[in-house]
């Protein structure tokens, strides 16, 4: 049992191949200006032969190295993904095998784009319950496997990548570094983002998703802050799911995160679903844009329509 958990270190991985808006204009009827105006994306990374597990392990390996923990100390691995092609084994056990982690509890979680915050919450709960002490929490996606490259309304949106954190039990007397989760869903709208069927592609009703995101999410994100006893103006950083710059900006404005760095990794990475928040967080930490110990709101939302967020202390 522990009074809470904290993020010890983070890491990320992106494939080497950069796909630009001009590249996409060669493939479908679109152009750079249109894409920048509608979603704010300039480039995205696309995996070559890397699998979801390869990217997850690469990000997790970096987080593990930065944490000072050894592979032997990891007793739980949770992977958020909605783009793993294989039904079994899961990505978490493959990550364990790649990193030489001998016998961890290992599970995948799928709530699409909000997956990382769900995974972080379940790991925090496991540590509080005494079921784990040192965990890897990973968001990894290969959306390019589920993209219809002839559909200009979706193929410009997505990218591949992974982000990870090492989460550990806090010492006695230490403040928790992961706040209470605010999570939920809007199942009546669950069919507006889909990756359905046997040969599935991502499809979405963009206007319905946009309306839900810009109208409903600000109050939910505020509740995630309130659960941690934090005001939005106290936040040092806001890392929402990187779905669309035109969702991120009004969400930040309506939430009133006036003193926070707002993650906009979508510009260079596109929408990487459950990987987008840990990827953006890891880059903020790498660039030292957020002081260690400062409050950061993570907030995921997407397919389902699910959402989850929590205030963490920056590693």
């Amino acid at each position: 049992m522990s009074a809470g958990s904290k993020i010890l270190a983070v890491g990320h991985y992106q494939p080497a191949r950069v796909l630009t808006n001009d590249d996409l204009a060669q493939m479908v009827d679109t152009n750079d200006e249109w894409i920048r105006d509608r979603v704010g994306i300039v480039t995205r990374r696309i995996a070559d032969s890397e699998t979801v597990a390869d990217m997850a392990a690469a990000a997790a390996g970096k987080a593990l190295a930065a944490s000072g923990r050894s592979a032997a100390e990891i007793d739980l691995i949770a992977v958020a993904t909605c783009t793993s092609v294989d039904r079994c084994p899961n990505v978490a056990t493959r990550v364990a095998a790649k990193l030489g982690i001998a016998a961890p509890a290992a599970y995948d979680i799928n709530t699409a784009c909000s997956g990382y915050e769900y995974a972080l919450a379940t790991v925090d709960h496991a540590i509080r319950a005494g079921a784990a002490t040192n965990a890897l929490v990973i968001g990894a996606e290969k959306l390019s496997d589920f993209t219809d490259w002839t559909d200009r309304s979706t193929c410009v949106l997505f990218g591949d990548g992974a982000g990870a954190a090492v989460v550990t039990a806090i010492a006695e007397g230490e403040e928790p570094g992961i706040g209470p989760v605010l999570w939920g869903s809007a199942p009546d709208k669950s069919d507006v983002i889909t990756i359905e069927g046997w040969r599935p592609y991502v499809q979405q009703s963009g206007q319905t998703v946009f309306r839900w995101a810009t109208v409903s999410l600000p109050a939910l994100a505020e509740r995630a802050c309130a659960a941690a006893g934090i005001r939005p103006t106290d936040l040092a950083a806001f890392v929402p799911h990187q779905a669309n710059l035109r969702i991120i900006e009004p969400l930040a404005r309506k939430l009133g995160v006036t003193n926070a760095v707002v993650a906009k990794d979508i510009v260079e990475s596109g929408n990487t679903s459950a990987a987008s928040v840990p990827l953006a967080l890891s880059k903020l930490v790498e660039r030292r844009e957020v002081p260690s110990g400062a409050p950061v709101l993570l907030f995921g939302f997407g397919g389902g329509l699910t959402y989850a967020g929590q205030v963490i202390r920056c590693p």
Partner: protein
Amino acid sequence: MTTRDEITAGLSEILEEVAGVNPGDVAEDKSFTDDLDVDSLSMVEVVVAAEERFGVKIPDDEVQNLKTVGDAVSYIQKASA
């Protein structure tokens, strides 16, 4: 009951605020996308603001039928009747 002109004037203010449309360009025969350069996401913002201003519900399924300012005026007038 709100007149068509009053609804058009209200929409004009919303369009200026949400999408930077010049109020002088707004008329019932103008197409949101072709004449006023309002894209699909801005259209959602216009609809959300119009719902609040006129106290009506405009479901997502209806938004695609609102091609012109006049379409929106008619829908809002009917919905608030």
